[in-house]
């Protein structure tokens, strides 16, 4: 019975395709086809406009704007994984004071205007209690205006541009160390500890790359080192050999990678192919498995500052987390998943301690002392930024290994 009605729906479209499609004349079949699509569109639109008060009022509603398509789709997807995993864990144990956690994830398409609309709908239509913000830095900078006046509180996973916490926003928190800390961390290691004096910089010409390469360059200069050459490249560049040649010609002692896994993986691979065997330094985005997969053997020896890495963890809490995550999802949690996990537990804690509205949540978050997360100890500063120790890892055998 069901099959028959499906083909009945499909038929109008088929006859319209093979039959009369004359311009200017509306055949009934054409109208039906369009009508069907219009109904589908209307239905979808209606579901969005309809206030989703289907869930119980008792639930703690967490809105999560995340880039599920566009440039940062990888990070958004794994962040969602981590968040959902944490929520499932908590709900299985009965929730928070008997209230279940309800995660609402919406794709912000890595677009600032879309991010703003998504957050606004979270606040007004979905009436979320708190926001687990996985939007990019630019998306966050655009949408923060929505929550500045009256909340809800946003706790961010990816928005590591320092500008995010410089905006005097009482309800914005960033649970990951920001770009300044990341950049300075690796600069300290490379220039101060290792004493390297001349750096070539491969600058990814978008928000993260522009920020972090400047932080790195400024920091190494304070140790008397210099940047011999800075080569900028567009986000979807695949051929780096001309740039590598230009960098190598300037005779640096090491090369700094300011980009993400895909581009940096190609850079390192092509450098080895060109016979350039200078040491490479990079930052957080390179600890994901993608980097080693793309770079192949060339990934080994790359040293990276990071906020979290699963391999080589010894903290019992983190080890347990990785084990459980792996058991359920079949792979290790990456840095975004781990942070999202911690944020969910942070939220659960403040709600468990009785916070309810934006100001009490914000105040409780600020007053958390040494929250024990899987990504380390979390303490929020007054401006919502977090001060966390940076780890330095080296890629060995394709996996990141803690060295500091």
């Amino acid at each position: 019975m069901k099959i028959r009605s499906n083909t009945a729906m499909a038929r109008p479209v088929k006859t319209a395709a093979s039959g009369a499609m004359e311009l200017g004349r509306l055949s009934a079949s054409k109208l039906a086809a369009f009508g069907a699509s219009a109904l589908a569109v209307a239905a979808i639109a209606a579901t969005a406009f309809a206030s989703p008060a289907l869930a119980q009022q008792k639930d703690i509603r967490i809105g999560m704007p995340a880039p599920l398509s566009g440039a940062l789709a990888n990070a958004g997807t794994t962040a969602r994984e981590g968040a959902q995993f944490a929520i499932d864990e908590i709900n299985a144990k009965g929730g928070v004071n008997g209230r279940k956690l309800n995660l609402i994830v919406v794709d912000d398409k890595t677009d600032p205007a879309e991010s703003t609309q998504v957050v606004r709908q979270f606040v007004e239509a979905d009436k979320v209690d708190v926001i687990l913000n996985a939007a990019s830095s630019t998306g966050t900078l655009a949408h923060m205006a929505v929550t500045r006046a009256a909340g809800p509180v946003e706790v961010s996973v990816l928005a590591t541009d320092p500008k995010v916490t410089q905006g005097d926003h009482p309800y914005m928190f960033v649970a990951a160390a920001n770009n300044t800390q990341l950049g300075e961390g690796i600069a300290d290691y490379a220039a101060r500890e290792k004493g390297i004096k001349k750096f070539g910089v491969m600058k990814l010409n978008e928000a993260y790359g522009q920020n972090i390469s400047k932080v790195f360059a400024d920091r190494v200069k304070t140790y008397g080192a210099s940047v011999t050459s800075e080569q900028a490249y567009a986000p979807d560049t695949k051929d780096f050999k001309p740039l590598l040649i230009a960098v190598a010609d300037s005779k640096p002692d090491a090369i700094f990678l300011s980009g993400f896994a895909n581009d940096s993986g190609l850079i390192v691979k092509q450098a080895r192919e060109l016979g350039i065997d200078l040491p490479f330094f990079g930052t957080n985005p390179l600890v994901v498995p993608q980097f080693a997969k793309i770079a192949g053997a060339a990934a080994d020896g790359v040293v990276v500052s990071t906020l979290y890495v699963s391999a080589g963890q010894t903290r019992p809490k983190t080890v347990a987390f990785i084990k459980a995550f792996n058991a359920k999802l079949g792979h290790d949690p990456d840095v975004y998943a781990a942070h999202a996990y911690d944020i969910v537990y942070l939220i659960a804690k403040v709600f468990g301690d009785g916070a309810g509205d934006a100001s009490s949540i914000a105040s409780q978050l600020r007053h958390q002392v040494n929250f024990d997360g899987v990504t380390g100890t979390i303490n929020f500063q007054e401006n919502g930024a977090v001060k966390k120790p940076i780890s330095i890892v080296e890629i060995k055998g394709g996996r990141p290994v803690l060295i500091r």
Partner: protein
Amino acid sequence: MLGATLLGGLAIGSVYSLIALGFTLIFRATGLINFAQGEMATLGALVGYSLVSDLGVPFAAAFPLVMLVGAVASLSIDRLVLRPMRRAGVPEVNMVIATVGLILVISHGAKLIWGAQALSYTEGLASGIVRVGHFVISLQNVAILAVGLVLMLALHLFLHHTRTGRGLRAAATDPLMASLSGIDVNLMRSMTAACAGALGAAAGALLAPMYYASFDIGYIAFKAFCAAVLGGFGNIPGAMIGGLLIGEIETLGSIYISSEYKDAIVYGLLIVLLLARPSGILGGRAWRSA
């Protein structure tokens, strides 16, 4: 090192050329710009990945299969979407926008199947390097260039020295006369679409082992489109030359001129060239009103 880079520029250029040829073939046959050509490369790259890295099929065996997939995909698009629109006399700009819609369908459909992550090939066309005196030559680049040239040569031979090929050209040049001479114009158009798809998929399968396969490889189509226009839109040798040229200009541009504006240089040059020689380097067809 310069030699290696120049060769690299040619290798990428030959990938652009293959996709540009796809654009050109379809344009000649139907007067239409099919933007979904880039997605043939996406399919080629991803299907190739599945064959080579997931199923362990040797690259040499996977390559023709990948081209077949591209041919079928392009053929399906022609039959299911473009032909009905042609028959209904829909304006050309509408057909072009339909192909833009197809870009979304194919690339994000690919994302649903293969995921958002970049996927590395376990085996490529060739690997390793060879030193000839001062020059370091990447065998992979040589192989890509070679395969690209072979495919282009095969296309040329097919179009000029086989009956079917000549039929394709006849149907493209003058559909009315061709059908009067007994050539099945629709069949010829379908075959043209299949060829274009095969070439596009080949491009993807050549490109991906060098870098990686992912659902958003298709953006490369815009550079290939520029290559096709540069060489003279509708001109087959023009597409080949345009692709190689753009590959080289890009490469040289980023060595000798500031790298932030690398793309600006390529495109700026394009604008200048177009203004100086409006029908492209080898002279192409004028665009029928759209």
